[in-house]
């Protein structure tokens, strides 16, 4: 995925409930790249314009798995606090 696509996808997948701040997107991507979590590379699709795509590095994949597990645990903990009938 490339930067602009990430913002569009985030909005689309969340049904418009989440939007990425475009001004924060690139600093975050560059910070993650500097930390070795993602790797950027240029690619030009046939008939398209050159874009900088990002993919997860093995280290990034590990961190993503851990963060996802933490997020799920946090969300399920919060749900236990919500009364059964109001879910």
């Amino acid at each position, binding site marked *: 995925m490339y930067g*602009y696509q990430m913002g569009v996808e985030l909005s689309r997948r969340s049904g418009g409930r989440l939007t990425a701040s475009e001004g924060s997107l690139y600093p975050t991507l560059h910070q993650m790249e500097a930390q070795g979590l993602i790797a950027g590379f*240029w690619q030009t699709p046939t008939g398209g314009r050159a*874009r900088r795509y990002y993919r997860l590095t093995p280290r990034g994949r590990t961190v993503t798995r851990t963060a996802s597990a933490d997020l799920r645990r946090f969300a399920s903990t919060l749900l236990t606090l919500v009364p059964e009938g109001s879910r």
Partner: protein
Amino acid sequence: MRWPFHGSPIPEYLALFSECLEVPADEVQGVVAEVRTHLEEATEAIAGPRKDAEVQATLALGSPRDLAARIGIARRHRRQVRVLVIDPPLQYVKYEVPGDPIRVHRRDLAWGLAVPELMLVTFWAGVAFGNDLPTYSIAWAIAAVILVVGRWILPRLTPSETTRVLLGSMGVIIACAAVTGTLYFGRIVHGDPILWAAPLCYGPVLGTALYYGLLNANSPLVIGPRKLIDKADVPE
């Protein structure tokens, strides 16, 4: 470009963005190209006249100064890489630093400003409060100056603006030190004379060093693109 940022045409945005961007030179082009691609795609996605769409797209991305500073902070690293480049037409070997390893970031220069300022503030704090000064208050004040100037102001400026701000600051510090010295000799204020004499001497030295360092391409302080650092091993 005015503050607060209200959007601008893409070429104008990218020009200021690349000027403020403080990353090694071989990365500047890539980062600018990435932002250009983003702006072009965002512009195409916005309905209406192209000019208005460009303004909206740049507005969504935020101020170019701010974006450059934040990307610069994210990519902050110093690379000391040397590669051997053979230049066939000239038939000599030259050492080149690909991508200009940034040896002094603009934000680091805030420390240089803080030293004489610390002395003057200490002198005047002593005049104003005597021994009643809260513990570590001056240290906190200086830390705040370094943080604000180094983290927020200097990284958002272009190199030429940085030079002007640094030299202007030095001028203000020298003037303040001179006024303090005059008041001291007139016996209007009392305190340790080293606290105003040192900034008075340090100011011009630092100002000259900064002026030379920021303008001379071979200086270790140099800011901005710097390709060839050394020509060596030129055959007889």
